[in-house]
């Protein structure tokens, strides 16, 4: 299925939001959505609207904070910024993702013959 976009795993969008804000500083919802699309090379299936549920979840947990401000082209928009608690959470999530990715790599590299019981 190389021609279809990736479906987002449950909860991954929240991590992406955190990482984006950690890397880019304060941003509005549209900016975050665009950023994720761009960084993923337009590979994830993201209806931009779904970002708002994710922002709400993460904000309610106190990992990001929001305030209304003005964009560079003078539009009023809500800006989000990561909090200290958010950074700590991101560190945890990052570690988790790296471990999971490592395990997935190994499992996917499995070939007939070279995996089995250790020789005695």
């Amino acid at each position: 299925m190389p021609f279809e976009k990736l479906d987002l795993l449950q909860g991954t969008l929240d991590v992406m939001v955190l990482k984006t804000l950690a890397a880019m500083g304060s941003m509005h919802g549209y900016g975050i959505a665009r950023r994720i699309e761009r960084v993923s090379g337009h590979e994830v299936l993201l209806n931009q609207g779904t970002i708002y549920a994710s922002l709400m979840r993460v904000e309610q947990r106190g990992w990001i904070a929001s305030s209304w401000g003005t964009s560079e082209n003078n539009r009023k928009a809500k800006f989000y910024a990561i909090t200290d608690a958010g950074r700590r959470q991101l560190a945890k999530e990052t570690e988790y993702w790296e471990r999971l990715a490592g395990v997935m790599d190994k499992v996917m590299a499995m070939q007939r013959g070279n995996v089995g019981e250790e020789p005695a």
Partner: protein
Amino acid sequence: MSTLRRARERWLAFWSKPRLGAELEAEIAAHIALATDENLRLGMTPMEARRQALVEFGGMNMAKDQQREARGLMKLDILMQDLRYTVRSLGRDPGFTIVAVLILGLGIGANVAVFSVVNTLLLRPLPFTHSEQLVWIAPPPTKCGQSCATYSTDAYDEFRMYSRTFQDVTGYFAFSGPGNLSLNRGGAPIPATSIDVIANFFQVLGVEPALGRTFRAEDALDGAAPVVLLTDAWWKTQFSGDPNIVGKAFEMNGRQTTVIGVLPKSFDFGAVFSPGAKIDAITPLDLYGPPRNWGNIITMIGRVKPGVTNAQAQQDAAMAAPHMCWRNTIPQSCGSYAPKNGEGGVVPVLLKDYVSGKLRRSLVVLWSAVGTILLIACVNLSNLLLARAASRSKEFAMRGALGASRLRIVSQLLTESLVLSLCGATCGLALAWIVVSWLAHQGAIALPLLSTLRIDGAALSWTLLIAVFAATLFGVFPGLRMAGTNLTESLKDSGQGSGQSRKHDRVRSILVVSEVALACVLLVGAGLLLRSFMNVLDVDLGFQPERAAAIKVLYDDSAPDGNASAHKRATIIQQVIARVSAIPGVEAAGTTDYLPLGQNRSWGMPWPKGIKPPDKGPDSPLVYVISPGYLHAMGTRIEGRDFTWDDGPTDQSVVMIDRSLAQYFAKLANWPNGNALGQMLATGGTGSRIVGIVDDVHEESTESLGGWQIYYPMTQASPSGAELAIRTRMPPAALAASVLGALRELNPKQPAAEFKPIQMLVSHANSPRQFFMLLVAAFAGLGLLLAAIGIYGVISYSVTQRTQEIGVRMALGATLGQVQLDVIWKTLKLALVGIGLGTIGSLLAARAIAALLFGTAPTDLAAFAGMIVLLAGVSLAAGWIPARRASRINPMVALRNN
């Protein structure tokens, strides 16, 4: 941490929906604007730029929904929606709503009221500190009345000394009668009732006074200044709640008595120890004064040490018993309380069990009856909801078609049931509150703790519990049926004889049958209890309570010696009787020291002269010291002769005994012809001659013949007071004033004592049985009504559904009678199946309540037949109304309408 925070945020968000909603709108608008700006920069036309922005944003409503779901409490939102919808739809159908809420209100109200009674009598601890440590100490039941259930002051002392498992032991004087205290505040003396208690009584029970102090040991010493504790009620009514009452002295029983304290409102001596009695004051018992010579007078109450089990306490009491003497100065009286024939004479039982243990069975029956009512109410509601659901099936099918999930529809229906149930519970609670407040003031019902009855936290929780239970019970079934409705079928089903309606019909019939069966069980149970009550009323008590009354007479027979005292007493009482007998309407008058169905005592067995008493004799007879004419006034028949005023203190001692005792003596002593009349009893001195044999009197209970009786003349033996019994030609109450007036004329100190119709004493004794019988009968009536409503509902619904069919049949020539008969037959079938099942259930239920019946077999034909006929009759009446309607269907109209 963050999860908690999120929960709080969601809760807050739930309450600020408009603000958050507006903010989201603004944010999305900004998003689209920013995206459009960017697309414009990329060179798109304004239209295309905006379109592209919207495409990339994705589903607008879905995004909003997702955000709302993440933000707030969606479940609660749905619930609120359901609630709003429920209120609207119930409001549209007020007839249904009112009937449903009324049915539930009655069912739940009855349950809450009975729960309160059960909770007060059985579940809630007694109103004392650590009441689980309190025990009632008494021998097993005997036939010799209170004298055999009490202990002497010496025995009390020894028990207190030798028992090891008790923190302390106390007790009270068991023979205080009503009206034994006369308060003189100028004017007519005011009668009141006081109880003598051992000085440590309140410490042992753990009762703190509301004002002042309780008794100290020195208050009870011989020659101590008289002191009194007032109950809250008497303090309020008689002393207008004077806050400075402590330390004031009043003339009570002729002595200046100091009030040392007021008891708390929560302390109600009568409610715990003497159901139905109103106690006004508590006085200290002089343990080492004259009461030492009075024999068995103390009822013992103990507080065991923490952690001591009842078995341990019983063992300990059995060890202490042999040390107890009836009178320490009489060595052979020691050990008279020791266990005999494996039966202990000193047995502690939990005070709670003593107070309400006897009622457990009745209360369980009551609880089951009221539970059945709730069940019937639920079945009825289920039926109503099914009928309603049938008319709404298209609505639900439509909602299903539009995407509502099964769960969503069931939860909507359950919300409706819950709302109905909670409305019903509110009504029920109000109803229960009325019933409970009324019951709490029924002093005439001899049930313990009744005055402490109230709707408390436990009752409120119970209300909520059964409301939710009921809602689930009657809501789930119609809910599941509705949610399972097949869309095409119900949209097609127009209601005439199609499969769906038939199925509905069958379900509703099953519900009605079960309702009838449950009502049948209730009715038969009530019938059996009613028959038992009638049988109790029919018992020959040995006296005629109608047109008889009694009043306590105060007299002063103090004299230097017994004979002089007897002479003085005889003169006074003879005068009283002569004066009262002269009042027009009075047929006969006489005095006794104890009235039937009240207090009593015994003096040991007066064996026939010349007979060696058997080793293990029966319980000794109850003793009554009476005047000539008393038995006549009570309507008790005498064989032989009554006492006369000529049976003086120095003449031949005479007695009368009851027929059973006479038979026992005659057999024991082998008297010629088995006749006790004229024989002699060894009562000390030269012995007493039996001059009369009288009817066996129900002295302790209307339901069973208790102990034997022996009567002594007040001219020869010393009575412990005088209750003047009179027999009248008119309702006794009409004579109350003139009798009291006559007594006042003779003795200005005569208090305005209560003029008690003897019938009242009997009713009082019957009141617990009457109470339970009336409640069960009321529930049975309610069950019958609900069953009738159920039958009416089903038959009426089926007639409505079959209007067209009936129209066709009538058009084809069916007569009115045939149509009516058809409907009635349908009713009868339902009723008969229900009654059949109910009869089987009744037989089982009757066996379970057999112990509560009196003179009535659990298979009593009259009760069964009567109730079955009643149920069948009411069912037919319920079916007859729709049957009439069916026969009035105009075939033309019926056929045109569809």
